[in-house]
């Protein structure tokens, strides 16, 4: 028994090294003063962090990525919350199929999705680049919103809706006064997860970006094709911290929802 535990411990440790090692190395190299990536770093500076803001493309595409995530999130919420509600509240024909369609963007390889979007939105419908990006990002965010909101609704006791209606509230009023407040943390968590999904997305965006329009991850790809300096390492560290913060809040929100449940 004991040996097994030690073996498991070593295995777990190796998995962590394998997963986190590269992140640690990247973090170290970002503080290098020289112009090439080096590990371990031979000097210390924050120059490359400063450089992030001096490369004009980064700031610009950062804004694009943010706007894209926010706008896509808004649309995904407008579609996703009612969809999650209907999937949890009602029994109807074709429910399983609909559920499958809504989560399919998680299962279908991004590169296939990206290529499909390119063929239709850009080539066939001749949509402007921003419109294509917006639709593409909404599509990849939607399943995350639906899944996280659904898991909130799975804990929701729908008889309190009936209580509200019996006390005189309309159906719509009931949704806003009774349902929404109780799935609030699920919605916020869904928004955060979807935001990351969109903000870090490469495989869809790479097909949908075009001349003069790019997202931050695509701009980073372009940058590493031309430069070898540690700017990307520094930027990666910043993105890692943002991601970690978001996930921390998600954990807090979904974790807290366990306590507010009866």
């Amino acid at each position, binding site marked *: 028994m004991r040996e097994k535990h030690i073996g498991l411990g070593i295995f777990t440790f190796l998995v962590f090294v394998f997963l986190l090692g590269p992140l640690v190395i990247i973090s170290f190299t970002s503080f290098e003063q020289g112009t090439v990536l080096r590990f371990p770093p031979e000097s210390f500076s924050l120059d490359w962090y400063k450089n992030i803001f001096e490369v004009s493309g980064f700031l610009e595409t950062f804004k694009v990525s943010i706007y894209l995530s926010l706008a896509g999130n808004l649309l995904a919420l407008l579609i996703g919350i009612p969809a999650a509600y209907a999937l949890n509240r009602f029994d109807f024909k074709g429910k399983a199929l609909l559920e499958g369609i809504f989560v399919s963007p998680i299962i279908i390889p991004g590169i296939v999705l990206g290529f499909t979007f390119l063929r239709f939105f850009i080539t066939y419908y001749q949509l402007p680049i921003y419109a294509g990006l917006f639709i593409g990002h909404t599509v990849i965010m939607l399943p995350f919103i639906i899944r996280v909101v659904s898991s909130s609704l799975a804990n929701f*006791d729908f*008889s*309190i809706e*009936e*209580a*509200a*209606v*019996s*006390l*005189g*509230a*309309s159906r719509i*009023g009931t949704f806003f*006064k*009774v349902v929404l*407040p*109780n799935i609030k943390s699920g919605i916020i968590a869904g928004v955060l997860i979807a935001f990351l999904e969109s903000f870090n997305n490469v495989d869809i965006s790479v097909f949908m970006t075009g001349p003069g329009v790019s997202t931050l991850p695509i701009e980073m790809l372009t940058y590493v094709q031309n430069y070898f300096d540690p700017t990307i390492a520094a930027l990666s560290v910043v993105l890692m911290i943002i991601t970690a913060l978001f996930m921390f809040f998600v954990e807090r929100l979904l974790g807290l929802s366990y306590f*507010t*449940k*009866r």
Partner: protein
Amino acid sequence: MSLFTLQDVTVAYQKQAILQDFNLSIGEGELVSLLGPSGCGKTTTLRLIAGFLQSKQGKFLFREKDYTKVPVNKRNFGFVFQNYALFPHMTVFDNVAFGLRQRKVSKASIKDRVLRVLDIASLKGFEERFPAALSGGQKQRVAIARALVIEPDLLLFDEPLSNLDANLRVNMRVEIRRIQQELGITTVYVSHDQEECFSISDKVAIMNKGIIEQLSDPATIYRQPKTKFVADFIGFKNFIQFDSRRQETDGIAATVQGITLTVQQQDNDTGLVGAIRPDDLRLYPLDAAPMTVENAVQGKVLISTYLGRSYQYEVKTSIGQFTVNDDAAAAPLANGQEVVLEIPKKQIVLVD
């Protein structure tokens, strides 16, 4: 005058009819229970009255007005759910105030009315608590207060006490009855607990498979069940299927397999099934039976079970098997013992 009437309503889930040509009429100020085994359609009836379900046909009349198509939120009925259904994100005060806010009652008046009803429900001091911080009994009182505060025209309870433990159940049902009588609110109360229904109701409707078999005051149901189902449900465990009956001067002479029993006439019952409670039967050893035994039937003890306060016997006779509770026997009867079974003529109820 009746407050509301369900007239020939029919409810079906998918293709299966749960209520068919169902009728029910309840008088102003009454507390009427729907009592019956699980799945007999009690909740369905209650949800139909509340408006959560629509009848396919028939009518729901409330104070002589046609309410059949009136939506739930326009009915002004209070509904108390089995699982309380409190709003978990609101304090006790806000839970109770919810109905008043929907009615656009002024802020000062809301505060007044909520505090008054919390007082009635013995919830003073709990205004700022959230439901998660309440016990089951307190939650149920909030649910009742929330339904009461809107001054409903009708109060509906669906097994409100089934999630509480036994002691609390007794206290709560006394409180529900007290509040109901104090405010004089007409109430429909659903339960599958006989004692609960009998103890708080003006009238009890015994339901079976979507049909009301009997609607009477509790004492009448207890003494004079109308059908075999009702009799069985309220504890008449012994049934005799008579072949015929005829009127005699000292009662009804009912015959089964050549043996004639005398039944003291109750009301104007027409049934051919005699129902007797185990408690009402007497047993005597064959050699020690007194001469005055009414409706004596000879038999044999099959099984004797010790129940603490009494013995329960299964007795086999030529007219069937009987369950007898005998607390008088000083010396218990043994298995296989020959006995005389007394079926007191007053205790036989003839049901359909």
